């Protein structure tokens, strides 16, 4: 339990940095040129996606390669209800996390029967299942073309207002996730990751805890997908597939998955590097792959691992099931 209390020592300067960051984010529309404001808006949604995915991968030690399924479900909730029923955006935006949470409940009931590698493969299979349904059911989803159009209200189409809306929603979402992270429930999740058998013998119902974690993660991934629609006004099948599922896992690993803020940091680095590099080179995936290998071999706690949680243990052996 020692490792959880360590971050609290630095609460003073952490609060200061957080406040400075928030002020910078609020000032952004007046400072940043429009293209970079849109990049920042995208990153805010991805940060929610990454932390929600890390809720499983980092906090619980459940390696999901299928969180894009819920990200895509969030985006499709808005796009499909607009396409078929002309539902109000605000209503479908509120519904997105609920639909994602429900889907995650059903998927979790099945996927959590497996452990470790088989859990990763099952979540990957679910991700591909939703992907092929979105791609093949042309009559409902427009198939591979995806859905695009005026599904977002004009109000949010103004860059600054769209940005502020995304900022507000993602700050609220990240605060909620932070409350969960340090709640007794969050601590039990991490205890299960560290010593499954001991947590169980202390009375923690592992399946119940992990299923609830899966539902929460799915709901927030879905919310991030809804924020993607605010940014891009479209939903298409690639949002759901396993390669997309790899993104938030990579962000978490790069940023540091044993610290709450690691994935946020990772989302910033990942997306800024992506958007900057693709202006100069076609080899973005090559650099990403090499960088990922470097982090994996030499920085097991990620870039932010030392900054945010200096006393987190470096876990190099497979003890997740002990």
């Amino acid at each position, binding site marked *: 339990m020692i490792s959880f209390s360590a971050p609290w020592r630095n609460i003073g300067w952490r609060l200061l940095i957080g406040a400075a960051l928030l002020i910078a984010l609020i000032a952004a529309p007046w400072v940043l040129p429009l293209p970079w404001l849109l990049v920042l808006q995208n990153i805010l949604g991805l940060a929610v996606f990454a932390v929600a995915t890390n809720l499983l*991968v980092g906090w619980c030690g459940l390696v999901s390669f299928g969180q894009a399924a819920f990200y895509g479900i969030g985006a499709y909730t808005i796009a499909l209800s607009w396409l078929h029923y002309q539902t109000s955006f605000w209503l479908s935006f509120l519904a997105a996390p609920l639909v994602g949470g429900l889907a995650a409940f059903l998927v979790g009931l099945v996927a959590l029967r497996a452990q470790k*590698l*088989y859990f990763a*493969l099952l979540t*990957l299979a679910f991700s*591909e299942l939703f992907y092929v349904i979105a791609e093949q059911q042309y009559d409902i989803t427009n198939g591979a073309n995806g859905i695009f159009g005026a599904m977002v209200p004009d109000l949010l189409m103004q860059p600054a207002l769209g940005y502020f809306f995304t900022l507000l929603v993602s700050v609220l979402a990240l605060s909620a996730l932070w409350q969960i992270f340090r709640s007794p429930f969050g601590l039990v999740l991490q205890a299960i990751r560290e010593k499954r058998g001991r947590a169980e013998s202390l009375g923690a119902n592992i399946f119940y805890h992990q299923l609830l974690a899966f539902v929460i993660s799915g709901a927030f991934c879905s919310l991030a997908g809804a924020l993607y629609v605010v940014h891009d006004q479209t939903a298409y099948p690639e949002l759901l597939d396993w390669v997309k599922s790899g993104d938030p896992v990579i962000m978490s690993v790069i940023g540091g998955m044993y610290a709450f803020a690691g994935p946020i940091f990772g989302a910033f680095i990942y997306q800024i590097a992506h958007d900057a590099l693709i202006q100069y080179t076609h080899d973005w995936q090559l650099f*990403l792959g090499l960088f990922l290998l470097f982090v994996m*071999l030499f920085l097991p706690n990620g870039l932010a691992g030392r900054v945010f949680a200096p006393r987190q243990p470096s876990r190099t052996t497979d003890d997740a099931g002990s």
Partner: protein
Amino acid sequence: MNAQTAIIEILSAMTTASSLFIIAAGLTLVFGALRIINLAHGSFYMIGALLMATLLGTSHHALFWPALLLAPIAVAALGTLCEVVLLRRIYHRDHLVQLLATYALFLIFSDLSLRLWGTDSRTVAAPAMLTGNILLRGASFPIYDLFVIVVAAGVGIALWLLLQWTMLGWQIRAAVEDPESLAAIGTNVPLLFTLVFTLGAFLSGLGGAVVAPLQAVGPGMDQSVIVSAFIVTVIGGLGSIVGAALGAVVIGLFQAMGILWLPTWAPAFIFLAMILVLVIRPAGLLGTVGSAYFGQND
């Protein structure tokens, strides 16, 4: 459906199954010994097909046979390099690191092959003796498809002979059961692992080279095939070669029937089948914990 179309449908299902088996056999062989799911396995397949396209050019049919051997050998060498430089450093790490490291390889190879071969799709011509159709009980069937089935059968038999009847095969099976004891009696286990991974890469490259004349060869082949290969190995049982064959036949038939009757739902059914198998038998249809490729050691 009359008898002729039934034969054609079954044979084309077997062709799909055969190409899937060649790839899945490599994936399952590597998993059996090394306990690693290699996400870059699809990259080896794509590179095998692309090398085939490069070696053959557009019209040099005479080079088909040497290329069919050279392309997989080059891919195998690439596999050796990956194992020695990267993978042997992560055998003791947890599965997240292993998945992401091979995923990183997948990203790197995907970009490198775009750089080397460009975005255009290529076609590979089969040699004259393998083109055309033959008549089977009045139904006409492409000779090249039969060739793919023969190659897959050859791979299956060769793997069986290797694993059951050679010293190397015994060592590989022993490494699946208990690498520590194997090392204690003097076997060079790291070298053995390198060989297994090289063989897996060879099979994937061979799969790509063999199917090259059947499809457009280009970027994206890696991403689509790896998911199919997963489904096949997971349904059959990770680490079981007979299971890979069974899984390949199941998926081949599923696809053929799906395309006939429910084209838009067929891909979804395949994933549902995989999910169902994983839930009911987490180790797959023929996989048993600790079984060495053929499932008879449990």
